[in-house]
């Protein structure tokens, strides 16, 4: 190769290097959060294991139900599960989020005017006592007055007026801390869904589980709602769509099948399933 040829080849090579877009050789950008636009349809759910929990694949029975409805209705929404009522209220009332999922949210009458409640699950409640403190259980036959002067452990957002009126003392706290207090003797009884109580007994009180006794008859019933926000641009419309979707999966048996998968069938399903209407 003579000098001329070498010079030509070098020139061509340099030109190729100069012209070829360098970015084509680079990898893509590192993915950062700000590259994404947040979903406008944000739904916030309140921890309520095993119905709502990040511990379970699928997020728990309530979240699976909602996702089934959202899919069926082709609604694009994200569900975030949070540990505090205060955060859910913040997102719905202040950030105008699409909806929340939970029980015992404690909205004021004024706040409720802008909300649409769609029931998802029934939560049959039972009283629980700690046997070493109450070896013979409690004289509970359905009349709260028979429990007067005992100390009841309530959810912080629970309506406690009925208990106070019946003469019970009330302490509030989250279920795990109420169970701790029940065991330590600071409480005489608490009420919750059997599945929720079992969740914590299995995980946190396995050695003492048998000492926590469930009382019959049932203490009452709570409802786990999906609560839509009328202040969200599509809140009312999507509430209607979700209600329709829920009705449809109740009618076609998908709802019951999902609960059976989650709760293993039997009495547990009956305690939580919504009436067909």
């Amino acid at each position, binding site marked *: 190769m003579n000098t001329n040829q070498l010079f030509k080849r070098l020139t061509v090579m340099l030109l190729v290097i100069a012209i070829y877009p360098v970015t084509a050789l680079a990898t893509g950008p590192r993915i*950062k*959060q*700000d590259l994404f636009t*947040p979903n406008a349809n944000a739904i916030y759910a309140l*921890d309520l294991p095993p119905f709502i929990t*990040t*511990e379970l694949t699928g997020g728990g029975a309530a979240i699976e139900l909602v996702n089934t409805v959202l899919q069926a209705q082709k609604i694009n929404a994200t569900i*975030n*599960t*949070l*540990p*505090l009522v*205060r*955060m859910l209220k*913040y*997102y719905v009332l*202040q*950030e105008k989020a699409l909806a929340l999922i939970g029980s015992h949210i404690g909205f004021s009458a004024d706040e409720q005017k802008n909300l649409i409640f769609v029931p998802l699950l029934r939560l049959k409640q039972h009283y629980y006592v700690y046997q070493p403190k109450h070896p013979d259980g409690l004289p509970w036959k359905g009349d709260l007055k028979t429990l007067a002067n005992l100390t009841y452990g309530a959810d912080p957002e629970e309506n406690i007026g009925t208990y106070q009126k019946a003469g019970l003392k009330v302490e509030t706290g*989250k279920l*795990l*801390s109420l169970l*701790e207090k029940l065991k330590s003797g600071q409480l005489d009884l608490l009420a919750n869904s059997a599945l929720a109580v079992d969740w914590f007994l299995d*995980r*946190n*009180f396995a050695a003492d589980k048998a000492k926590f006794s469930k009382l019959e008859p049932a203490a009452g019933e709570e409802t786990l709602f999906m609560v839509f926000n009328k202040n969200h641009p599509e809140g009312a419309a999507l509430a209607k769509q979700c209600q329709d979707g829920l009705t449809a999966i109740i009618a076609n048996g998908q709802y019951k099948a999902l609960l059976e998968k989650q709760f293993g069938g039997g009495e547990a399903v009956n305690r939580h399933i919504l009436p067909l209407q």
Partner: protein
Amino acid sequence: MNPRFWLFLMLFLAQNLALGKEPSTTVKPESVGLSSQRLQNIDRLIDQHVQEKKIAGAVVLVARKGKIAYFREAGLADTDKPMQKDTIFRVVSMTKPLTSVAIMLLYEEGKLLLSDPVSKYIPEFKDPKVLELLPPGSASEYKLVPAKREITVRDLLSHTSGLLYMFPNNYYHERERQLVVDFYKEAGINDGFCRPNETIGDMVKRLARLPLYKHPGEVWDYSLASDVLGYLVEVVSKMPFDQFMQKRIFDPLKMRDSHFYVPQEKLGRVAAVWKSDWQGSLTKVTEPMIDGDLALCPSDAYALSGKYLTGGGNVLSTAYDYYRFAQMLLNKGELDGVRLLSRKTVELMTATNHIGDLDATFLHDHGWKFGLGFAIQQDRAHDVDAGDPGVFEWAGIYSTRFSVDPKEDKITIFMSQTSPFNLHFGLWDKLLVLSGSAISD
């Protein structure tokens, strides 16, 4: 067989089996460039604090050039029980460097990157929100804004995650901090000085979904980050945190008296915690100590088992065990022929500055930066001085402290069990002055 062979064999075994146990003797200080006479100043310092009933007792260890030159116990470990060199202490936050090393072991195996978002392993950390105050007169006091970026593993190691501890709320009074702490309290978050009846994963998964105090990377704030790291070890290694620590750190380093839950046969060696007003009133503590947002449960250390394993504060250890850990770091990852970490990784952990223009002012002051698990002295232009730029150290809330001076090849360890910790800064600082001024070469 030749009796001399048996004698030799017995001596050989005795010497080698003793490795990792508390040494019966220390070397002559002069052999490692320390002055015996000057080290006696430490005797006087500690004895004076014991006599004045500022502390009940202490164990102090100074090592140089890989040898222990000063190792002394003073005062009481418990009522009518003298302090011993092998007394077991709640080292509390001195657990954090151990946890950081656990993370770096996984880092060296390629199981995680420091740049990884924590949400890659603990999904609850995805899409973090930061609490920001709204102008006075707004309908709400605050808003929750999306964090500019996610928390990374490195943020957790260097305490730049935006997470908080609750107890500093007693000392710092910004409104945002108070509001975030309120969220923590409502969610049942625990600083880890009392051991609740749940797993660390339960707590971390709640914490992950609460608002951050500041955007990740924009703040240095001492926090529950090490507790998160402990859980991260569990997730990545698929081993309970205490088992990982035992297998990967305590056993290889022969830290035979380091535990998350002390076994029955060693309970008698656990020091009592004492409350001191630093004026001569010293009382043994048996009940939980609640002071505002600080909750301490020293009696939890006597539990034989439990499920709460925090990377931020659960380990109990001895001065000698912790010396072995510190010596491994000073040796850039190796001790007695066992290599735990590579030289490069220890250099990364102890690099003077991982926090940019921020300062690690919690236990120290301006001029102190933070590495991946400890505070590191950046310069000598400030009041809190541990002897050299590059000195790295941390402490525990019941008054324990370790300090490693790579330039002078020196380790200083102080172990006491006294509360409140904030009265101890002077004593700790004086001890470092005395161990530094004993250098004679």
